[in-house]
């Protein structure tokens, strides 16, 4: 045990003290924030040179008091196209918007823009947005439709779940969305963490083998202790890094909200779209926010959080043991190494895709069974946890994960102790199988 601790400490401190740890831990999140801030800045900048446009209204739908929209200034001083064109040639205006005559049976209405310069995309859409409402109002008035009747035509549809048994948990239409999104985020994080740190274990194992220090080490301690110390050491680094990121995330979001007036949560999505949706459907969004908050608070966190941590640990241990075994079988031949790495990552990738499918269909046969199966369980089950899977499935999944971890660590240990001493020989899978049954 003492030896495992020694190895763990070495793995932990050499990593934590290294420049690359500091870089990835502190600069990566800042880098991401700066990237999104830059993106946000770029996307929020439209065309900013003012364009003077003349409007020739042959349809009779414009509101002449409207003289500015975004970077476009609109003038109504020209009575016909010809005088406007003369003004254009005299460089008094930058272009002419010609609205052709309109009737109620027009379903395709072409606005003509006269100019030798092209409109920018955002300018085009400004013009389209400006006149589409005008055309709509024109049609409503001409056809004599009552605005209040018109409002009655549009209906928002919702499927609202309602429980039958009184004992069942109260659910709302938001329950499944909130749960799946939460599950999806957790599943993705788990996948990323296991991939990043599992492959670090693999690299560390093969490094020790290639620089030959492993022979000195295992003349002092058992290979299994070395492997476990390494897996736990790298895992601790992972946990520390995640912890630091979580704290940074909170700090950045607080700072972001107070200084910039934008929340860190918005960085993930299309900020412009969210802001627009908010202003247009202000009340409804508020309702949704309240709903989401309500759903989040109704989730059984006391059970789910420990299970998330459990699956994170079990998932990491399972895959890092696999990575350790693979690392031990590697030589310095990069092509061999790639083929072997593929074998270790394949189950993880399949599990990840099943997890994605489980976000939308958490109760499908595939989702249920793969959340219990070895290798897949630790990735798929966390996705399903928020949608309240039956207790027996959780218990089966936990048990199978534990059995898998123990069996795989044992197996990996068997391969590892032989693999790290094998040089210059290509390790076929048949060979790996034989190593398991060798007598030490």
């Amino acid at each position, binding site marked *: 045990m003492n*030896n495992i601790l*020694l190895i763990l400490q*070495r793995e932990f401190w*050499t990593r934590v003290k*290294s420049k690359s740890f500091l870089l990835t831990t502190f600069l990566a999140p800042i880098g991401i924030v700066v990237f999104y801030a830059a993106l946000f800045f770029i996307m929020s900048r439209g065309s900013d040179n003012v364009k003077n446009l003349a409007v020739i209204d042959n349809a009779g739908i414009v509101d002449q008091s409207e003289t500015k929209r975004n970077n476009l200034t609109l003038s109504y001083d020209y009575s016909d196209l010809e005088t406007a064109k003369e003004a254009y040639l005299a460089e008094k205006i930058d272009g002419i918007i010609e609205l052709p005559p309109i009737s109620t049976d027009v379903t395709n209405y072409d606005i003509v823009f006269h100019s030798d310069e092209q409109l920018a995309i955002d300018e085009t859409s400004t013009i389209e947005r400006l006149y589409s409402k005008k055309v709509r109002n024109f049609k409503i008035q001409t056809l004599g439709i009552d605005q209040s009747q018109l409002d009655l035509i549009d209906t928002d549809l919702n499927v609202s779940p309602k429980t039958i048994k009184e004992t069942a948990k109260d659910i709302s239409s938001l329950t499944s969305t909130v749960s799946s999104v939460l599950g999806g985020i957790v599943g993705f994080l788990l996948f990323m963490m296991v991939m990043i740190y599992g492959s670090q274990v693999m690299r560390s194992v093969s490094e*020790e083998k290639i*620089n*030959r*220090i*492993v*022979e*000195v*080490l*295992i*003349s*002092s*301690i*058992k290979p299994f202790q070395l492997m476990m110390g390494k897996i736990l050491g790298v895992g601790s680094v992972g946990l520390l890094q995640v912890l630091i990121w979580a704290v940074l995330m909170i700090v950045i979001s607080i700072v972001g909200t107070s200084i910039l007036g934008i929340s860190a949560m918005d960085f993930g999505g299309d900020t412009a779209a969210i802001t627009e949706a908010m202003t247009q459907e202000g009340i409804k969004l508020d309702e949704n926010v309240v709903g989401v908050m309500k759903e989040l608070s109704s989730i059984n966190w006391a059970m789910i959080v420990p299970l998330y941590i459990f699956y994170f640990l079990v998932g990491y241990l399972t895959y890092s043991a696999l990575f350790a075994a693979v690392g031990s079988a590697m030589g310095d031949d990069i092509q061999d190494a790639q083929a072997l790495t593929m074998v270790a990552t394949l189950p993880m990738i399949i599990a990840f895709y099943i997890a994605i499918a489980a976000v939308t269909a958490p109760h499908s046969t595939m989702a249920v069974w793969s959340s219990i199966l070895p290798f897949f369980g630790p990735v798929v089950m966390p996705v399903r946890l928020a949608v309240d899977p039956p207790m027996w499935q959780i218990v089966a999944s936990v048990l199978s994960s534990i059995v898998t971890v123990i069996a795989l660590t044992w197996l990996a240990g068997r391969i590892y102790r032989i693999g790290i*001493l094998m040089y210059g020989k290509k390790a076929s899978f048949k060979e790996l199988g*034989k190593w398991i049954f060798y*007598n*030490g």
Partner: protein
Amino acid sequence: MAVLSLDNVVKQYSNHRAVDGVTFDVEEGSIFGLLGPNGAGKTSLIRIITTITAADEGTVMINGEPLNSRHPSQIGYLPEERGLYKKMEVGDQLLFLAQLKGLEKRDAKKKIDFWFERFEITDWWTKKVQELSKGMQQKIQFISTVVHEPKLLILDEPFSGLDPINTNLIKDEIYRLNQEGTSIIFSTHRMEQVEEVCEDIVLINQGRVVLNGKVNDIKETYKENIFRIGYKGSKPSLSSNKYSVISQSNDDITIQMTAEMGSNELLNDLIRQGVDIDSYNEIKPTINEIFIKKVGETNE
């Protein structure tokens, strides 16, 4: 008393027997040569002794006790293929390796300091291994092998890659440790070093012991009654069925005698002929010659 005792040790790999019934003892306080050509089974044997692998059959005893998990802390092992963490600082690295051998941190630090002073490298503590030359790295590797004061030291080609100055430095340390009671197993295929350093040897080929004993006894056993006589003046004319001339020049002659003939008999013959004798030596075989002969025999 034997510090290490192997009895009928067997190690079987899937398609070949790397160690095939090996038996020998290493006396406490001796410098013992473990010899053999490449692929003879030396490394397999060392790995069994250092508990890296286990024997399939036979027993390995250290100080009369069957090999167990307490023993690695009493053994120091310098593998032929040297290896250190390249990016780790020298001091931290030695501290780590010493702690793995069961030393307390404070104790380990004291012992490392002792070696740093001994090798006059006190300013190396914070250097990274990759900043050191190969010879410097070898010194660090040597310290890591002996820092926990092992009772049994196993050195696999300890002088490979060392310049003559460092070779002597390490050689002196090996002698000193041996003087202080450390038993040393010295594995090599450089025979001139074996003759210089070792008292006892075992020669292994194809997983089996082909020769075992004291260096002087073995040389005695494998001597072939060859004498070289240096002389002045006219060539002696030697014609007897009791000996044959191997080579002759203007001032010396090499003669092989039959086993029943004593060396004085040849001397008498020469004196009777009035040969002016300069020197008279028995030519004993070198370990190298015995090695090549025995390996050749077992390979046939």
